[in-house]
């Protein structure tokens, strides 16, 4: 029990550090702006994975590591923030976000030294990569898991469903797809653009072991990822989240899909950090 509390607190603290890093990068990006909202909605998910669930060590190329793919690559602020907290990216390098010649662009670019296994950004491609990795690990008889984070808007892409069908066909029980259901996409709500209400049913019907949980509730995330899942199916987690989570001005405000963090808002956000 005590251990659980400790672990949950660790994830919460990790999330706090992630939000700090995100603010700094978004502010450093200046007028070029950044994908702020969709990064903030996955903070607790990515924290649970990187600070608790995933088997990783100091070496980003450790062969026995669990694998991570950010299919919704535009949420890379949260990814870089996590890679910084686990020691793969320095605080100094975070400041180069979206600068000329930086390793840290507005979508992840493969860089094994920094712990970025794949380039992503064009939506609907990450889950297929995850399948290739997941099959590879099974063939190599490696007991590692593969985690892919997708957006709910991203699930508009047909290629997501090609991959969803294949993963259950191949019984990839080491593959986790976490769908960040923040109910928004670039130019409006899912309901306005392309309705994704029945995502849970869709993933279930494609042969995945599917759960729905609160993607900001660290206890729920901890509990789910702590359970041993014995089913032979791949796992889909519909994580109900809030776009722009953490700051009063950005929560559920789709103007923050891609926006400029001004000095005054940056300072306000720092005060709101809890």
């Amino acid at each position, binding site marked *: 029990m005590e251990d659980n509390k400790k672990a949950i607190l660790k994830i919460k603290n990790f999330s706090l550090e992630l939000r700090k890093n995100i603010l700094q990068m978004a502010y450093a990006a200046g007028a070029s702006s950044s994908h702020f909202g969709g990064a903030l909605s996955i903070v607790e998910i990515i924290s649970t994975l990187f600070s608790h669930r995933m088997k990783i060590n100091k070496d980003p190329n450790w062969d026995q590591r669990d694998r991570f793919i950010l299919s919704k690559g535009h949420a890379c602020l949260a990814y870089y923030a996590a890679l910084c907290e686990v020691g793969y990216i320095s605080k100094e390098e975070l400041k180069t976000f979206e600068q000329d010649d930086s390793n840290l662009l507005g979508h992840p670019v493969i860089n094994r030294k920094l712990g970025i296994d794949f380039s992503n950004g064009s939506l609907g*491609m990450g889950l297929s990569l995850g399948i290739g990795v997941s099959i590879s690990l099974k*063939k190599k008889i490696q007991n590692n898991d593969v985690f892919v984070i997708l957006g709910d808007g991203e699930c508009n892409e047909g*290629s997501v469903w090609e991959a969803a069908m294949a993963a259950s066909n191949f019984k990839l029980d080491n593959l986790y797809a976490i769908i960040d259901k923040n109910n928004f996409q670039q130019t409006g709500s899912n309901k306005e653009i392309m309705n994704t209400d029945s995502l849970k049913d869709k993933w279930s019907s494609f042969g995945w072991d599917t759960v729905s949980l609160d993607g900001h509730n660290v206890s729920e995330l901890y509990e789910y990822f702590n359970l041993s899942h014995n089913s032979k199916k791949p796992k889909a987690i519909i994580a109900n989240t809030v776009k722009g989570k953490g700051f009063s001005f950005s929560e559920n405000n789709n103007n923050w899909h891609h926006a400029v963090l001004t000095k005054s808002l940056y300072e306000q956000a720092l005060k709101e950090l809890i």
Partner: protein
Amino acid sequence: MIINERNIKTWSTIGPRATFGIAALELAKEIDNLMVLTCDVSTSAGLDRYRKTYPEKYLDLGIAEQNMIGVAAGLSSEGYNVITTTFAPFQTIRCCEQIKVNVGYMKQKICMVGIASGLALGNLGFTHCCIEDIGILRSIPGITIISPADSFETIKALEASVKSKHSTYIRLTGSSNNPIVYKEDYKFEIGKAIKILDGTDLTIFCAGAVVHNCLQAAEDLKEKGVSCSVVNMHTIKPIDKNAIDEACKNSKLLVSVEEHNVIGGLGSAISEHLVTIKKKPTLLTIGINDFYSKGGSYVFLKEKHGLSRNKIVSNIIENLK
């Protein structure tokens, strides 16, 4: 692979697709980490025996080419040596952006094999023909493009591609009873064109199954007093610039012949280098002239698009005037 007259004849009879399947079977014997991925085309790609012999080195993704490229990239990133294959339009255009991001941008090494490219499936219409693949893939950095002249060269191209560090697209043209260009063993090197015939008047650059038609045309032209060099440009990217430079020194006319749109293919690749040369002959580009015709048999379509022996001859004679 045992290379002898009998095998070369067999490969020619069964055509480049079935030959590809045999070549993959051979490669699987020596390459432990080989993986062959298809999209429900194992029979068409001559892989039925492979599939039964090496089920652990085979993966069928169903009719989902975009997913196939992503899965291939995932396997490649974990150290597997991956071949993907399906019909050329679906191997290239259907999953073009996946190729751009995974193979080009991310540099995950894959050998992609487009079967029945060009006009071979003309009876099925232009959904199944492929006259755009070279142009499209040539614009993606980092992909080598090879168009083998016959079934035997298909084996050579596959082996070289699988053993290369770079990603490759192998474009298979021709059908069963594929004419033989190479009757005996020869040296094949990616990026190095092969002069099959040495002549003094003009140089014909060609790639794929039309190499045979070009050799036939050169025979006819010789009878008419025109001496042709015929160069097999099996590698279209990177193009062999030396071969073009040499041809410029010795030819009154350059000709490119390809089973592809004249925009974006071999002729375009040659002309991109040609414009950098000060003193050069004219280039006559023979291929599909940027339109979708009515369908029909392979022979019919080659004739219609000026790729038959006779049409190549008359076109060249016309341009020599």
